[in-house]
């Protein structure tokens, strides 16, 4: 199919405002007379709130109002999947940082003085920080229902029989790190009540319609009494799916007759928002001598911290994806999300899949090595293809590009092997070079749940075309992609379309910007809306030309009857001739990819309509003396279905690889200890190598122009490819991330001890 806008590197929507400093993020909104909000948070990880004395704080100069749990008019409980988290806790604190009191003051200094003047008495309870400990019967109970939030089982075939029929079985334990999203813009927003008494919240978010629903329930008001508008958003990576400042802003604006403003400091952003779930994974994988996978068994424990957030989704996704993109006839997975008194874990780019990929990709390399296959050949022998059946019993019918991505990286793999050998020969002593491969699959959209999106397109009597979408662009580029899809479908130039986005009063629900779903799901909804408008426009044009609609051509913003291009009329001409002032042409689009819920006992079902696939190869250098691992080169091949905007796809690949390097090599959030970017290091330009992106397009029939998604897949293969490269360089299997300086130095000295013994 020849496309004019889709598949093109158009200039990103909003980029001019961003390079000139004009873009308005939450902190940039000028709201005169706004009060400052600050929160008092629990200094202990587990306890019962005995007494809250606000009298002294209320007397502090400049303090306007102090709120506690009893000021919450509606339900003092929120949570995106299971509601278990109080806005302000009046009874129990479950982690160091649980919010207890909200202060509204004229300025920051007064708010700080009020926080210092609060007297909060908490009876400390024994706390538990390890999920395995938390599961023991004698462990302190964090929530009334117990410490097991959720368990997901996947059962396919007979795993024990599968192991019996194996020539080789490898069993290993893996551990992954707790991570901070570290989006560069901390949480921020403003709120006020408008003339109609509606609480308007302007906020950095990736989930405006869900924010709206949660605020409606917290305030106990009618839906039209709350409006959430997404400001320009400085990154999210899953961390801005949960509400943060929203309920505090809404609560204060509801009670006070003044606008309010709240911004988290970096320290508060670290302390008071979700983290990536650390996983402990026990994985056992079997194969036959001739290289066929026979069985895979996994036990997964995810530390979900004090609250549920996306814990259920993470435990489920890790389980569903536990085999990797390979056919395994016999599968048994048990995956648990467990409460502890750590910072709560939630969504972060990939929801458990980046973690589980560390396990399945290490297993693949271990098996390949033992059986004498190179890593790409072994993956190719087992990779999904059209007709393959997944662990949940789903037959993959289309857009299965995993083999294509492996084929694409093969020449790079061989070239990097030669480079590693050559550098090793000429390189410094104490330096080791190695090449590692990893692959991944990733289901697009929510797991086994409906996750529809909707969109509208309007053409007014002057020919202005407006796309309405609830999808929040948080920097990944959905604005651009959605406008491209609309423009292509309508046969209009890209810059002809005006965009209204992510305002719960003006736009309808597009679902969250998460699960790599906006291009695929909202893109399809926009496509449907555009088709509808196009149909109406063509009908109008046909009337103008007095020909049947099926003989009309619509191209490049012009309409003409077949073979009569010389008579062409522009969209505006058609509109002027057929619409009266005030009349609009409107198209509605809706898409909800087909899924079924997973069977609670066996996990069988259709969790997603479509999957993205990727394979990556990295060359690393390991400094045996300092323990430092550097990624020298990375080539990453992604099957995205169709790259609606290749520049955006590349941008996501670069972004994911960079984040994966941090995850694989040095990022580690220590609950109660990590407070700033000084100790939580994220990759700089020096840590990220030159990356070669390879776009593979195996079209998805249900996607707009064949598109799937890439936002999270971009990250997933990175850490495992690094671990496999470290093995190739040094012979050590690293089963725990990050593979930081201490880990590598530890392995070096263990090796030396071993050598000195023998």
């Amino acid at each position, binding site marked *: 199919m020849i496309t004019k806008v889709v598949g093109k590197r158009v200039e990103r929507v909003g980029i001019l405002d961003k390079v000139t*400093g004009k873009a308005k993020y939450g902190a940039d909104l*000028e709201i005169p007379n706004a009060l400052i909000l600050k929160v008092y948070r629990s200094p202990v990880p587990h306890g019962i709130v005995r007494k809250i004395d606000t009298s002294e704080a209320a007397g502090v100069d400049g303090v306007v109002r102090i709120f506690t749990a009893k000021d919450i008019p509606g339900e003092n409980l929120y949570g995106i999947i299971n509601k278990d988290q109080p806005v302000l806790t009046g009874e129990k604190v479950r982690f160091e940082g649980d919010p207890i009191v909200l202060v509204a003051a004229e300025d920051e200094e007064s708010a700080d003085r009020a926080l210092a003047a609060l007297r909060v008495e908490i009876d400390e309870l024994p706390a538990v920080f390890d999920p395995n400990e938390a599961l023991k019967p004698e462990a302190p109970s964090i929530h009334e229902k117990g410490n097991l939030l959720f368990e997901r089982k996947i059962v396919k075939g007979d795993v024990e029989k599968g192991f019996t029929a194996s020539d080789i079985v490898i069993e290993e334990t893996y551990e992954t790190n707790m991570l901070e999203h570290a989006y*560069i813009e901390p949480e921020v927003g403003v709120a006020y009540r408008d003339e109609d008494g509606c609480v308007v919240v302007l906020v950095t978010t990736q989930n405006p319609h869900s924010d709206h629903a949660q605020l409606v329930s917290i305030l106990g008001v009618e839906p039209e009494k709350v409006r959430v508008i997404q400001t320009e958003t400085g990154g999210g990576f899953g961390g801005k799916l949960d509400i943060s400042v929203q309920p505090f802003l809404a609560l204060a604006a509801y009670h006070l007759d003044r606008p309010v403003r709240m911004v988290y400091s970096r320290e508060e952003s670290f302390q008071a928002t979700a983290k990536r779930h650390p996983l402990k994974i026990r994985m056992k994988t079997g194969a036959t001598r001739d290289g066929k996978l026979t069985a895979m068994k996994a036990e997964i424990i995810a530390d979900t911290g004090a609250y549920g957030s996306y814990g259920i989704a993470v435990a489920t996704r890790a389980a569903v994806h536990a085999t990797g993109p390979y056919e395994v006839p016999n599968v048994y997975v048990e995956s648990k999300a467990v409460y502890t008194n750590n910072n709560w874990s939630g969504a972060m780019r990939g929801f458990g899949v980046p973690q589980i990929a560390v396990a399945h990709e290490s297993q693949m390399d271990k098996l390949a090595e033992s059986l004498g296959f190179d890593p790409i050949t072994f993956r190719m022998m087992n990779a999904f293809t059209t007709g393959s059946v997944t662990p949940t019993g789903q037959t993959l019918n289309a857009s299965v590009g995993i083999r294509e991505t492996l084929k694409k990286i093969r020449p790079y793999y061989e070239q990097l092997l030669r480079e590693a050998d050559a550098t090793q020969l000429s390189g410094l002593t104490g330096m080791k070079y190695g090449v590692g491969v990893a692959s991944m699959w990733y289901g697009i959209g929510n797991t086994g749940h409906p996750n529809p999106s909707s969109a509208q397109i309007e053409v007014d009597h002057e020919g202005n075309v407006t796309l309405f979408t609830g999808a929040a662009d948080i920097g990944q580029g959905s604005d651009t992609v959605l406008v491209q899809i609309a423009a292509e479908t309508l046969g209009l130039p890209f810059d002809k379309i005006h965009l209204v986005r992510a305002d719960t009063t003006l736009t309808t629900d597009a679902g969250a910007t998460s699960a790599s779903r906006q291009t695929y799901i909202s893109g399809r909804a926009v496509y449907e809306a555009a088709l509808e408008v196009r149909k109406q426009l063509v009908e109008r044009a046909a009337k103008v030309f007095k020909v049947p609609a099926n003989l009309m051509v619509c191209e490049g913003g012009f309409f003409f009857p077949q073979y009569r291009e010389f008579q062409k009329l522009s969209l505006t001409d058609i509109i002027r001739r057929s619409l009266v002032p005030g009349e609009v042409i409107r198209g509605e689009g809706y898409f909800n990819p087909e899924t079924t819920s997973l069977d609670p006992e066996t996990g069988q079902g259709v969790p997603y309509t479509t999957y993205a696939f990727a394979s990556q190869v990295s060359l690393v250098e390991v400094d045996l003396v300092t323990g430092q691992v550097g990624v020298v080169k990375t080539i990453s091949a992604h099957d995205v279905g169709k790259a609606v905007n290749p520049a955006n796809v590349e*941008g996501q690949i670069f972004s994911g690889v960079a984040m994966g390097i941090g995850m694989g090599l040095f990022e580690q959030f220590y609950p109660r200890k990590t407070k700033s970017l000084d100790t939580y290091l994220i990759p700089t330009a020096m840590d990220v190598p030159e990356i070669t992106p390879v776009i593979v397009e195996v079209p998805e029939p249900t996607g707009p122009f064949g598109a799937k998604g890439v936002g999270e897949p971009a990250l997933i293969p990175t850490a495992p490819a690094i671990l496999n490269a470290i093995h190739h360089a040094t012979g050590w299997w690293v089963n725990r991330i990050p593979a930081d300086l201490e880990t590598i130095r530890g392995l070096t000295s263990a090796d030396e001890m071993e050598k000195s013994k023998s």
Partner: protein
Amino acid sequence: MKISFTLNGKPVSCDLPSNRRVVDVLREDLGLMGTKEACGTGECGACTILVDGIPRLSCLMLAAQLEGRDVTTIEGLSKSGETLHPIQQAFVEAGAVQCGFCTPGMVLATTHLLSENPRPTREEIREALSGNICRCTGYQKIVDAVELAAEKLTEKGETA
């Protein structure tokens, strides 16, 4: 105290507490919201401004340090008459922007780099920008943008 300095080419004079952070002076007192604050502790580079042409972290500078200085923020980078400075134009063409929160700081850090080193290598670019954190782009397109900006500026016979 009374503080006088040049801001984006124009003289300004204001009465400020000497210990007020420059990022607050710019954003709150002078309404220049292009300078971003992302950490407040000197770790991210989002608040970068140019003081006498040198990149400085405005979250760590105090108002008194502005006295007599020549300050450039993202708002003052392009010359009057042009909508975009060639460096900004390069960031647009290279698609070096995702969320954009790091962008003003990156652009200003680039301005300094190219004034010192008009044709930097990719390695040199990475090193020069290593104090500016970007969580979104993986840096590659930013490095592309800086190379492109260097070309544009040398073609025009200009320096940053």
